[in-house]
């Protein structure tokens, strides 16, 4: 049993002059304040990685910098699944008694801390170093391959994919911390320049600077506690060339196990936070998980199903595509938003119901999956 008792999310976008440790510190300050805790209350520290600060020991580097003396510290690397993977580990540490209050923190100056080419090249290394990267393949190309197969098999169109980008932007308009806040239309997405067909610029998340932190505790301390009901992982082949299936990445199996472990079913879920590095990522995950029938995610998005007032509120902060993506903290932003939603503090974005939430992240190219079920405490 564990509780998520605080969260902190910085504005995403440009933070010139602010490094990884600065952004992690900003987020940690916000999360501690939200939980009503101080540095000395923290006995576990979990963090991810930063492409702009590729240190062997980021967790202890941060502990020293921030002034923590944890009895457990650990940096994890699961790509886009890292944030939820950290929360799963925090839940396990608290459950085992190894730690009582774990700070989970991510942050990176991915936008202003390096050139765009450097970022594209670093991220492309999730591809196979011998059999894929030398071909000039990029992350959008790997996802473009998946998108081509998806559109071929399920009869969806590029306009259907675009609906998810439009939805994320619509949500981001309501959040002053989001990187992109000007509304866009399906026509705008379709007219944006091609990156790796069928994906266009507005089908892709952009790179941001930012930070996010949460605190996982053995007790429901403070005024904003949620229960972490279950957490599961599923791992496929790392490389897209080696995936057993191009259209079933195991996300549904992963979420089904999480829901079963929580004693819940998909019908109990009132709000969702799903990884959305590209429109195809979000579309495939929603449909594999069963939050949309095959080929219908775009239609449901257009009909308002995933809006704050809809049947399944989704990524109400704007997701990676519009709130922004700064690496580990990018996916953690989904969690921070869900924390606000589930504790009734999301203001103009507030969903009418968010008592049971399903969160799912993926890392690599649909390679690594982590699902979380959260419940109101």
């Amino acid at each position, binding site marked *: 049993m564990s509780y998520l008792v605080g969260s902190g999310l910085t504005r995403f976008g440009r933070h010139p002059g602010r490094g990884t440790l600065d952004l992690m510190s900003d987020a940690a300050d916000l999360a501690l304040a939200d939980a009503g805790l101080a540095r000395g209350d923290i006995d576990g520290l979990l963090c991810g990685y930063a492409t702009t600060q590729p240190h062997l020991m980021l967790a202890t580097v941060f502990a020293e910098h921030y002034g923590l003396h944890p009895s457990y510290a650990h940096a994890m690397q699961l790509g886009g699944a890292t944030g939820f993977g950290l929360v799963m580990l925090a839940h396990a540490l608290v459950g085992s008694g190894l730690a009582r209050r774990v700070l989970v923190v991510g942050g990176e100056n991915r936008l202003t801390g390096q050139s765009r080419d450097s970022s594209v090249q670093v991220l492309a290394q999730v591809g196979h170093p011998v059999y894929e990267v030398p071909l000039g393949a990029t992350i959008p190309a790997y996802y473009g391959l998946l998108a081509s197969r998806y559109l071929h098999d399920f009869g969806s169109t590029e306009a259907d994919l675009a609906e998810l980008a439009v939805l994320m932007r619509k949500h981001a308009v309501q959040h002053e911390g989001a990187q992109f806040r000007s509304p866009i239309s399906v026509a705008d997405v379709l007219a944006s320049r091609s990156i790796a067909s069928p994906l266009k610029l507005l089908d892709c998340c952009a790179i941001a600077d930012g930070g996010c932190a949460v605190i996982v505790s053995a007790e429901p301390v403070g005024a904003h506690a949620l229960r972490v009901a279950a957490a599961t992982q599923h791992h496929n082949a790392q490389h897209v060339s080696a995936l057993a299936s*191009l259209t079933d990445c195991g996300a549904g199996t992963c979420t089904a196990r999480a829901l079963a472990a929580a004693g819940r079913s998909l019908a109990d879920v009132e709000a969702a936070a799903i990884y959305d590095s590209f429109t195809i990522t979000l579309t495939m995950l929603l449909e594999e998980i069963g939050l949309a029938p095959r080929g219908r995610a775009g239609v449901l998005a257009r009909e308002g199903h995933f809006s704050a007032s809809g049947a399944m509120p989704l990524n109400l902060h704007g997701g990676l595509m519009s709130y922004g993506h700064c690496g580990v903290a990018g996916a953690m932003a989904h969690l921070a938003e869900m924390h606000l939603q589930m504790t009734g503090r999301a203001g103009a974005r507030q969903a009418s119901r968010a008592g049971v939430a399903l969160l799912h992240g993926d890392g690599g190219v649909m390679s690594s999956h982590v699902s979380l079920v959260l419940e109101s405490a």
Partner: protein
Amino acid sequence: MNDAATQDPAMDWTRDWTRDWTQGGDQLLYQHCLACRHVWYFKRGFCPACGQAEPAAAVCIGAGSVQACTQVERAPNDEFRALLPYVIVLVDLDEGFRAMGHGAPGLVIGDRVRCEIRTIAGKPLPYFELAAR
């Protein structure tokens, strides 16, 4: 022989890996397990399905079908920027494994293709051309 191969006694010597495109050669090699018959692409000194050592290697004939296809318009570096746009495909080879390669413009999923090793951006890479639609 490359250093990695000479240091690994489990590596298969029945093929000359220096002719594989990944080592600058003009062939596309794959491996298969004599014990469990598993077939795979990424070179290893053992079968990833059953663990059997000393897998066999074979030269791929190069016939297959397109499973996924993307035209890249944003390159990772200057070498590939000069080639834009280029096509990346995933192809199921008839021998029973999947490979990524460059593809001819206009390829679509389901196309039958044949592979040749071409010099692209200064390196030999698998290139798939249309064989039949």
